[in-house]
């Protein structure tokens, strides 16, 4: 690709590449296209092998000249991956295996039919659905932050430009810097990383600082276990984040930007590196961008596995080569940030929204959302739902719509128990909150938070005390140790929870938990400590009866806590096959094959559950 050094050249390039994309999707040149999901989820299911197989078979059949094979970013509907989409018909095949490749080529491309058994089947109507937009999972979605993901090739800057990349930057460079900030202020964009602080105000603070050096930092240290939207954006359309960063840089007067991305995301890191390299090559990063005085370059730094580095000041310390421990605020990073210079730290999803707002206008963004939370939010749906994946929905969508319409409800006709939003810093919401419209303030009012958008659904088989313990283990591991209430408070809370799940708890422990939660919340420097006890507070409030059950009756109602359950054989179902006894690691199951039903010695049993999964007749149960 040729260098793009002024707005006219960008216009020409955009028009040319847009035509190329249109031709690809609409088959104007008679060429058809296959796109394959290249997100981490699908790559783990061998979508690279799938691509190679398509290329090979097409070549062998002499079809490679008229059918192109492309890799794109995440489709979002991860539980149905890997996806293969065929243009121009727009047919979506799901759960495609390498062995399906020849069938698709034969039936779809040669015979112009459809491979029926690879289509998505609606779990309720049992209807086969051919197009992506007709699937319930996609119907209520609106892609703003995920713009371009699953459409363009993330490793090809030409496609990104054809799909609108750098249009917003061009527009911003023709505006006054304060006007750009006003636009973001008017859009009501709030930080998507957790706190929900108004992005425009952050920019304004940094703009107001007099300094010859300022920095924009993109926070891609997505630590919430169960959230992966930032990764998918970086994998699907990295240039949208780079462009957002450049607009921020122009607005506050920064010349350099730093990406801080988790090292656990190798695909995202690789694609970001490619995007940075390509943008430099065509002159869209570097000096005098688009013929203006604006100079900007970006650097990439990797995290090294510390959750606390998602906190902005800890992140800055990490970039500075130190232990990732938070700094006291004020001074805020906008005043004194990276290397002591004014710095704004914005999350990946936040920056990905910026080009959309600038390009399409404030109203195109504010028409979605609630009064105080504008636009859309990406959620990572996980846990006990039928449709696991990534969805971008307008703020104000209710939890019920999210869990039942989009995520398709709970598998196996089990009952909904709770949804945890905001990860380890959030809280759980129950049935009574299902009709709450999701936005920043509603979630906080209910004792949870938006966080980065993780949404984990739990059903009747999940023990809430165990879940609370899980989050506390995580926080305890990840507390950096700087503040005593967080370092020791979380440890003490974990000890009490362990005691309770072991069946050694006392009722007075619940008061102690509440007291510790309060101290940890009030006495910690950063958000990690301040929110550490949220899962405890919310489960204590909404599932107190489960705690009491563990303490008073020494039972775990969901049959999860190991010390409080025992395994038994149902003599009516036992077929005396001896499989349980043969699999038992401690030989505590006795019986005679074919003659005598088997019995478990509960005093010797180590409760490993091996027999339960080994029994072909479901004769073993937990009590």
């Amino acid at each position, binding site marked *: 690709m040729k260098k793009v050094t002024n707005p006219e050249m960008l216009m020409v390039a955009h028009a040319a590449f847009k035509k190329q994309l249109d031709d690809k999707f609409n088959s104007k040149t008679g060429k058809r296209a296959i796109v394959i999901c290249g997100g981490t*989820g699908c790559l783990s299911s061998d979508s690279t092998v799938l691509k190679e197989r398509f290329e090979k078979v097409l070549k062998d059949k002499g079809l490679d000249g008229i059918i192109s094979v492309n890799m794109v970013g995440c489709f979002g509907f991860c539980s149905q991956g890997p996806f293969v989409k065929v243009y121009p018909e727009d047919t979506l095949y799901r759960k495609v295996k390498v062995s399906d490749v020849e069938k698709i080529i034969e039936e779809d491309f040669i015979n112009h039919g459809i491979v029926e058994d690879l289509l998505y089947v609606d779990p309720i109507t049992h209807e086969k659905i051919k197009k992506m937009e007709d699937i319930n999972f996609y119907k209520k979605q609106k892609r703003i932050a995920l713009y371009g993901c699953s459409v363009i090739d993330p490793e090809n800057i030409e496609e990104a430009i054809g799909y609108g990349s750098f249009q917003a930057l061009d527009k911003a460079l023709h505006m006054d810097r304060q006007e750009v900030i006003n636009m973001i202020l008017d859009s009501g964009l709030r930080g998507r990383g957790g706190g929900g602080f108004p992005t425009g105000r952050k920019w304004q603070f940094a703009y107001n600082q007099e300094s010859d050096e300022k920095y924009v930092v993109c926070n891609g240290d997505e630590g919430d276990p169960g959230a992966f939207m930032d990764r998918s954006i970086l994998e699907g359309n990295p240039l949208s984040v780079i462009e957002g960063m450049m607009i921020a840089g122009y607005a506050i007067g920064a010349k350099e930007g730093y990406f801080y991305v988790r*090292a656990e995301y190798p695909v995202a890191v690789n694609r970001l590196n490619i995007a940075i390299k390509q943008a430099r090559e065509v002159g869209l990063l570097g000096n005098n961008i688009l013929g203006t005085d604006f100079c900007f370059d970006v650097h990439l730094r*990797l995290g*090294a596995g*510390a959750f606390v580095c998602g906190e902005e000041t800890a992140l800055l310390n990490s970039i500075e080569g130190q232990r990732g421990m938070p700094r006291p605020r004020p001074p805020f990073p906008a005043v004194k940030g990276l290397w002591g210079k004014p710095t704004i730290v914005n999350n990946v999803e936040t920056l990905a929204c910026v080009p959309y707002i600038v390009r399409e206008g404030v109203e195109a963004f504010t028409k979605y959302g609630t009064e105080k939370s504008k636009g859309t939010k990406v959620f990572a749906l996980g846990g006990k739902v039928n449709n696991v994946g990534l969805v971008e929905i307008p703020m104000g969508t209710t939890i019920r719509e999210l869990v039942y319409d989009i995520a398709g409800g709970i598998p196996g006709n089990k009952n909904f128990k709770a949804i945890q939003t905001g990860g380890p810093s959030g809280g759980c919401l129950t049935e009574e909150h299902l009709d709450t419209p999701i936005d920043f303030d509603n979630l906080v009012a209910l004792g949870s938070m938006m966080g980065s958008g993780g949404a984990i659904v739990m059903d009747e088989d999940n023990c809430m005390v165990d879940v609370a313990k899980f989050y506390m283990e995580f926080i305890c591991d990840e507390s950096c140790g700087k503040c005593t209430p967080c370092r020791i408070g979380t440890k003490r809370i974990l000890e009490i929870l362990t005691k309770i799940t072991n069946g050694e708890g006392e009722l007075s422990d619940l008061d102690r938990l509440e007291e510790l939660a309060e101290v940890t919340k009030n006495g910690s420097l950063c958000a990690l400590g301040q929110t550490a006890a949220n899962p405890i507070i919310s489960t204590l409030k909404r599932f107190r009866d489960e705690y009491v059950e563990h303490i008073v009756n020494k039972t775990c109602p969901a049959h999860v806590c190991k010390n409080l359950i025992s395994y038994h054989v149902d003599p009516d179902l036992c077929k005396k096959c001896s499989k349980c006894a043969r699999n038992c690691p401690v030989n505590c199951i006795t019986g005679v094959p074919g003659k005598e039903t088997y019995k478990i010695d509960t005093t010797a049993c180590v409760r490993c559950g091996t027999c339960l*999964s080994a029994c072909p007749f479901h004769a073993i149960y937990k009590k």
Partner: protein
Amino acid sequence: MKLQEHAIKEIKEIVAQFINEPTPLMMILSAVQTKFGYIPMEAQELISEETGISVAEIYGVVTFYSFFSLKPKGKYIIGVCLGTACYVKNSQQVIDKFCQLLGIQPGETTADGMFTIDALRCIGACALAPAVRVNEKVYPQVRVEDVEKIIDACEKMEAEKNEKGN
């Protein structure tokens, strides 16, 4: 223990590659960790000599981040995801089974240097929950009864590699 000649050379090269970056320590440590699989004290001393950063500070950083390791890891690093989505789908039982079969705890390496078990905090493959990653390969929807097969697969792979080597 003394560092071998080639290791000294390689560490020096890594330092030289990043030394002109502002605050290069994290970048140097990441590169050394990736290259050697761990960062022993001797390597930290060498980095200290080359950069002028005190050993105490380097040691502080190395021990803060879970990616950096002071000890070598096994040939097969079994990472069991304990992210929330995997945890609510029983990944704790999966990691317990690995520990039971290999006789080690998370974070430890078997005496023969074959296996390390790591408890991972979300690899982002939530749709594949519970997920287990062995080196680069991700095993989706792992059940307790699959654990033995995964270990067997690694041992088979290693045997094949040794055969080829001989």
